[in-house]
């Protein structure tokens, strides 16, 4: 399990999970557990996802038509549901990413002076 200290973990903002799922699925079709692991791993275990919350998000994305689901066989030869990005989802990912970048830049811009003020 995670080895990071509790206080260094960040809870996900509402809606960010959707973006992370889309980004993760860009790598290819995955089942639910694999998505959760990928997010955890790729964020250097800073992002703590309550794994269960993945499922409402996945279904939300399916409903919006951004991803689709298909039966498949997992690495240990078991039947599992695989999720895959649709063309619409791909477009959405580009859009959401640029939105996210803008937001991150804007927040960074606001926070920067505070950082500098903090310096001796």
């Amino acid at each position: 399990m995670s080895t990071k200290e509790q206080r260094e973990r960040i809870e996900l903002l509402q809606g960010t999970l959707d973006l992370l799922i889309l980004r993760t699925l860009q790598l290819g079709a995955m089942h639910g557990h694999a998505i959760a692991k990928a997010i955890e791993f790729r964020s250097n275990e800073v992002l703590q996802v309550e794994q269960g919350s993945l499922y409402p998000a996945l279904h939300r994305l399916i409903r919006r038509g951004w991803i689709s689901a298909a039966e498949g066989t997992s690495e240990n030869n078991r039947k599992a549901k695989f999720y895959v990005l649709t063309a619409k989802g791909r477009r959405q990912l580009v859009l959401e990413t640029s939105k996210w970048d803008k937001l991150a830049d804007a927040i960074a811009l606001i926070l920067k002076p505070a950082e500098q003020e903090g310096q001796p």
Partner: protein
Amino acid sequence: MNPRKPMLQSLEDDIRFHIESETQDNIDRGMPPEEAHRAALLKFGNVARVMEDTREVWSMPWIERRLQDMRFGFRMLLKHPSFTIAAVLSLALGIGANTAVFSLVDALLLQRLPVPHPEQLFSLVRATPQERGESFSYKEFLVLSQNGRQLGEVAGYAYRTVRVGSGPQSENAFAQLVSDHYFTALAKNAAHGSDLGKLGRQASGADAVISDKYWQRQFARSPAVLGSTVALNGNAFTIVGIMPAGFTGASIDYAADYWVPITSQPQLDGDSLLSAAGTHWVRVITRVPPGLSDRAISAEATALIKRQARSSGEGGELRVELENAARPDSGLRSALASPLLLLFAIVGLLLLVACVNVAHLFEARAAARHHEFSVRLAIGAGRARLLSQLVTESIIIASAGGVMAVLIAWAATRALTNYISGHSLLAIPLPEGLRFHPNLHVLVFAASVAVVVGVIVGLSPAIRSDDVDLRMALKSSAPSARSNPRSRRRWLLTTQMTISLLLLIVAGLLIRSFQKLNEVDLGFSPSGVVQVQVDWGTLYTDGQIRQIADRLLDQFRALPGVSSASMAVPGVFSRSTWQSTFQLQGQSSAQPALVDVTAGAPGFFRTLGIPLLRGRDFTPLDTRNTERVVILSETMARSYFPTSDPVGQRVLVQGETIPAEIIGVVSDIKLHSVLASAPRLIYVPLTQAKGPVTRSITWEIRSTSLENPIVGALVRQVHQIDPGLHIDAEPVVDTIAQSILVQRLAAWLTGLFGLIGLLLAAVGAYGLLSYTVVQRVPEIGIRLALGAVRREVLWLVWRQAMQPIAVGMAVGLLLATAATRLLSSYLFGLSRSDPMTLAACLLLMGVVAGFACYLPARRAAEVDPTTALRFE
């Protein structure tokens, strides 16, 4: 297709697979299997909740949640019937009063003519500097309809009461005399029978069209009626069409039974007005196609009318104005519009009181459910969800209230319209439109009021539930000792008292004013006097009528119990006014004044109890052939003869050149209206009266019996002469009461609403204090245990409850002094700050509120300290 099902079916497998994978990962990392499974579950979170959340993605969450809220709400409300009944009843009264008044407002002020594009209809108004008349002469109408180039579709109409059939079976009906293009202008055609365009073309003949209501009432919807002949005022008419249901012409006052060509006026009246230049009797309506400006129409019509008026010798300023006629033409509207709007404002306030009442109840319930809300929040219900639950419950209550309200409104307006019809306001049967039909407008109104009230009332405690303190609430079911909700409730109580005192004061003022109206000195004594009038039809000549009138007078005088009888034109409080010129002899160069005139037979003053101040009454010796005589009212005498004795002086009256001698002075009377001051009035002998007075003769009969048998005897006397005559016999007190019926209704209705408001406020205060007392039982227990005297406790609780009430009453009084400014025009002989009324209202309110608070306060004082302390 909804992909919901297949997606959700595999969800459980999916989750199981997920957890197994995670467990396997953990085992691979070296955890013991049991520990690995536990960790996986922990990491996954609450499986049930995940499934619920996922399912929600696919559901129609809004509707489903509302349904769930409703089910829960119904359960909660059924569990607390007294709360539910109190809330529903409060709202039913509040919304019901509003719906009832709204249905009248709708019928009278909002409803439009049931014809296509009523907004294109305009009526023409004939405006001179002196007056704005709605009627034109027939010649003027012809000029407008024939020569107008861009006046649109011009039509003329007039109303007549006609006698249908003859003999004892005959009865009255309303006829509308209409011109050629009337039905084309209204864009309304007959439902059965001929094309009404033809009614115009056959106008020389005597075609008639009947209304659907009349068809139902008189002919039981028999199709054989088409082509049959009826006698209207003794003239044969052929029924050629039946109008569609709901169409009653351009007026709601006169729901027409018959439509006949306007050119049949000479036959119906027995006297042609078709070529009379100065008589304005035709109302003109036009349908203006879109794109034409009213200004251009008004200008063209003005030019046409001016030319016509000049050619017939009527000079002077004259203008034709356009008035929108989308709403049915109504005299009732102008008479009732402002009292109705006042009532509307009053029931609005009443609704506010009811709402505050329900808000009280919800507040108290919310406080009692503090624990429940805390638990629901703790197990993860969102605040929004909690709020929506509360609003749902209040909407359920408001809807139940709304349904009851429509029933109350239906019963109330029916009772009201029956009462008004029984009193035949404005001497016509109550228009069909004023009868309460639960039409779409009214239902939509009631529903929207109910929903708005539900949301507002539900939200008020809901906002409070927002600051439910979880830990505090869970620790103890006892309410936390925060002052905020309590002061809010006190504030609500203050508001309620303010509004209901305001209501009470308005009601008090109107009732006082109505009392004053009844106490007004009329200048004569109406009680015991019956006034009789006969509808002579067209069968009798004026000479015959004069003879019959004299004979009837003798017969009336001979009836047992009759102390005196006389005749006059017009009778007292009749709806017609007669005027005469008046001029002192020797001042013939000056413009003569126009004054009211009553033509009376000998004994008129004695019969009505009008004191003769100087000189003598008319006698049978004052005839058509003797010297002209006149009697003045006191006001007339004072204004024309301030210093000298008028008796014996000579004046010119009734446009005559032969002078009349003043033979007496009588004291002033109110002739037409209780509200108006006594008019300048002269009396002439009936025998010397000029003009068409004969058919308007009324008999005044004073009898010692106050009961009604005299009326029956009078009717029998007339029917002995001709059983076919239609006669109208009415005690003068009733006639006078009718003339102030609007004021009476306004007084009683506002009084009723004021009392309902008072009752609601009292129930509110009682409920609130009862709840507070329950809350304070431990505190009171301690006080008593520490030695407080019970009377002191009672006084303490009562005083604290009365504080917000007293503040509310003070504010209400202040508000009333400002708000009643709007009331001034409704008050008669009464200042709007009438101290008696204000004091009485304050006293009533104080006593009722005091009593409402006393009951729970006494209960507080009866608290048993030991139980109270154990309770905590």
